[in-house]
């Protein structure tokens, strides 16, 4: 059932709610091309415009400016019911007065599919989602995870060109959420349906997506693969939003070349990878992820700071260290319990320059998590 079409293109999309003094720009000049079969996640904090963008794709909102096309066809004048898209809602939005079977059959009935065809296709998709035994149940007799699967089945059965997900996992508990992530990804890949997924959960975005679009305050901060977003963030905001971060003040930029810079931090000079704008920015900062930092007890007067708190998780230990750079977080996996530096003691830490990434500073360092 591989789907070759499904090329979704958003060009210069702007959405303004209200007018006059109450005007709110929800989405500002948004551009995105999604390739057939690609899984793209819109990620960002509440109110960043990600849901509005999704709802414009579905047709529930009309862009104030800009165009949305699917396989080259303009969607502007199509109401939601005329767009070949399936949507999975945050609240699932199952029809409470219909059985699971009827819920899934609804879209096919709208298309006037034959009775025979409806039976076959609904049975097929219920089988795929391991829901066959629940076909005659009412939605309120299902668990959250089952409702979620029905919602997905209902959206898939009409074979849409695009699947839209509006934070569909946010009402599930952590374990079920992880399980559904895997399931959604598996099904999406087997069907090859273009998918747009909205979430504020970075783990979801990282584990599901071919590409992540990070949004903030109505604009796109960065668009890239999970790897790029995590290791080569565009800004302090993205670095801070995805995963956990330490930002070190850079004493001075000693030299720069394409993609690299020689900087001195804490009196040590090192060669690191750098954002194109970083070296020329007035106060660049060095991003180092907590798991890249190794902590050792302070020896003979050489100390970078004092351990203020440790949290022992079993498979890893997390240090908070008070330093002249502010609080530094370090994560050591598979720790040897006896060698953990206890709170109140001095510590040194180090990281390999290849794990660091030089960023332009936007003025202030965003809060540490």
């Amino acid at each position, binding site marked *: 059932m591989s789907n070759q079409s499904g090329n979704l293109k958003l060009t210069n999309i702007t959405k303004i709610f209200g007018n006059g003094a109450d005007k709110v720009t929800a989405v500002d000049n948004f551009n995105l091309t999604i390739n057939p079969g690609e899984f793209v996640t819109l990620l960002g904090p509440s109110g960043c415009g990600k849901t509005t963008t999704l709802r414009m794709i579905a*047709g529930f909102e009309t862009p104030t400016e800009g165009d949305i096309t699917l396989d080259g066809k303009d969607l502007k004048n199509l109401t939601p019911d005329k767009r070949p898209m399936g949507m999975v*809602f945050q609240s699932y939005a199952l029809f409470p007065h219909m059985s699971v079977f009827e819920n899934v059959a609804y879209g096919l009935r709208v298309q006037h599919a034959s009775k025979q065809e409806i039976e076959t296709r609904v049975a097929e998709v219920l089988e795929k989602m391991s829901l066959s035994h629940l076909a005659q149940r009412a939605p309120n007799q299902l668990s959250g995870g089952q409702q979620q699967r029905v919602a997905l089945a209902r959206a898939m059965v009409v074979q849409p060109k695009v699947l839209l997900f509006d934070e569909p996992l946010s009402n599930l508990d952590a374990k079920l959420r992880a399980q559904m992530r895997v399931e959604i990804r598996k099904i999406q890949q087997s069907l090859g349906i273009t998918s747009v997924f909205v979430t504020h959960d970075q783990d979801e975005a990282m584990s599901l997506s071919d590409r992540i679009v990070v949004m903030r305050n109505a604009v796109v901060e960065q668009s890239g693969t999970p790897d790029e977003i995590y290791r080569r963030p565009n800004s302090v905001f993205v670095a801070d939003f995805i995963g956990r971060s330490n930002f070190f003040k850079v004493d001075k930029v000693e030299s720069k070349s394409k993609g690299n810079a020689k900087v001195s931090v804490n009196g040590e000079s090192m060669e690191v990878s750098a954002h194109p704008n970083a070296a020329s920015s007035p106060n660049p900062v060095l991003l180092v992820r907590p798991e890249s930092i190794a902590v050792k007890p302070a020896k003979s007067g050489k100390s970078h700071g004092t351990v203020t708190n440790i949290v022992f998780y079993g498979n890893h230990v997390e240090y908070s260290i008070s330093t002249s750079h502010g609080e530094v977080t370090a994560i050591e996996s598979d720790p040897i319990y006896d060698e953990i530096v206890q709170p109140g003691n001095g510590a040194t830490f180090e990281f390999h320059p290849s794990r660091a990434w030089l960023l332009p500073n936007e003025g202030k360092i965003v809060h540490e998590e």
Partner: protein
Amino acid sequence: MAIRSQSAKLDVFTKIAIFVLVLILSVLILIPVGNVLYKSFQPGGIDVLRDVVENDYTRQIVLNTIWLGTSVGAVGTLVGFLLAYVQVRVSFRGKKLLHVLSLLPLVSPPFAFATAVIVLFGRSGIISNGVFNKEPMIYGYKGLVLVLATSYFPVAYMNLLGMLRSLDPAVDEAARSLGASKFKIFRTVTLPLLIPGLGASFLLLFVEAIADLANPLVIGGDYTVLASRAYVAISGEYNVPGGAAYSTILLVPALMVFIIQRYWSQRADVVTVTGKPSGQVDMIKTPLAKYSLLTLAWSIAAFVVLVYSMVILGAFFKVLKVDYSLTLDNFRYIFSGVGNDAVLMTTMLALIATPIAGFFGMMLAWVIVRKIKRGGQALDFFGMLGLALPGTVLGIGYAFTFNSPIQVFGITILPQLAGGGAILGGAVAIVMVYVIRSSPAGQRSGIANLQQIDPAIDEASASLGASGGRTFRKISLPLIRGAFLTGLMFAFARSMTTLSPIIFITTPDTPILTSLILAEADTVRYGYAFAFCTLLIGIVLITMGLINLIVRKTQGTGYRPITVSAG
């Protein structure tokens, strides 16, 4: 997510629906009321308006009306609250029975109560004279408050019952765990949360009371109010502009209260939406509190039963107060004359109006809640006017507007719909009144129900390819079936028992039961009045049962509509 506005693009179905709804509302409300206003500023009407300031007698009528509304609002709300509170917070045997008795007055023509109260407590009344041997105190203000509060408290009861049930018990539990006594919780938590609901109920009853026409005519005595004064001006003094002017004055407090009431109920929405109730309601167990509450509640129920029994038994007594042998003479009489036609005509017109009103109200609710961003409030206001406007105003307005054909540039747009010589003997205008009087009930319950249903459900239907019309039929309507049914039953009961607007447009060709009852009661032929009332109550109850059955049968899918939460 925070942003949850309705569909940006309206489909054709919705656009046409909105246009038709606004058009219907304009014809049924705006034009008639505009006509009343216009007429009241003509000679004869102007004088009345001036008299409100200059003439003590006219001013007294206005003050009487407002004082009556205030009293009925206060007493009715108190009674409704007591019954609702007992229902939710006290456990006792016979709860269902008390609930039914608390709703019973809804299905009676209001002046059945007035008539029964007169026979019981009036001049040489069964109880006032027979038991206490006293002069009657029942005519005038006191009797009116008693009768009106008894007739309308179920409105407050339903309102407050819903509110009390939706209060989150966890709030009480929180107060309890902070050390508050039960009485302190009642005073500092429950009551403040209910204030918007109490206010809204008071105002609803206020409007009902000042608009009531039948009771002041039957039991008002010398206590003249605007509604009855307007009726006398038109049907007794043939001063049409004068009658219009009294109605216009009545319109002012009615509309003011309606607007305040809307404000209150919007606040009430904010306060009472608590999501899923958690925990258990703490029942009242202190014997003193429990039994005093129960005694009060059952006393009220007993009074309702007493009055009801009087109506029904009165229909079978030979001659009230003289000969209590049972007879069917009263029924023989009412079926021998015009009564026969009236039963058929009233039932038929109400049956025609009921589905129209129910569908119209639901349609309005759906468009208001789901389809339009701005203007929803205005459309809601517009639709609810049908209930908020005093019946007298509507009736006079209909008489003015539809007693002659409506022409624009010499072309007849609407033929004569009301009065003698109108098409179908004026039945069309009566159906129109029934529809506009009863559709607000459907509209209100439809809105309340739709607001509880996640808008994503409509969107899910649209994203699966369903048009606006299909979504309304297959998704929204089935989900608000309960509300639809309630709306239908209320519409029918309301139509069968309405009098004040009808009295101005009924014709010899369209005899209406309520106006016949008034005529009998007015001429002190109580036996016949009771027989009519009994018949009317019977028809209403039977038809409500049938509607219930039909709607359940035809729409039954096996899945009961459930409250849908987003969590």
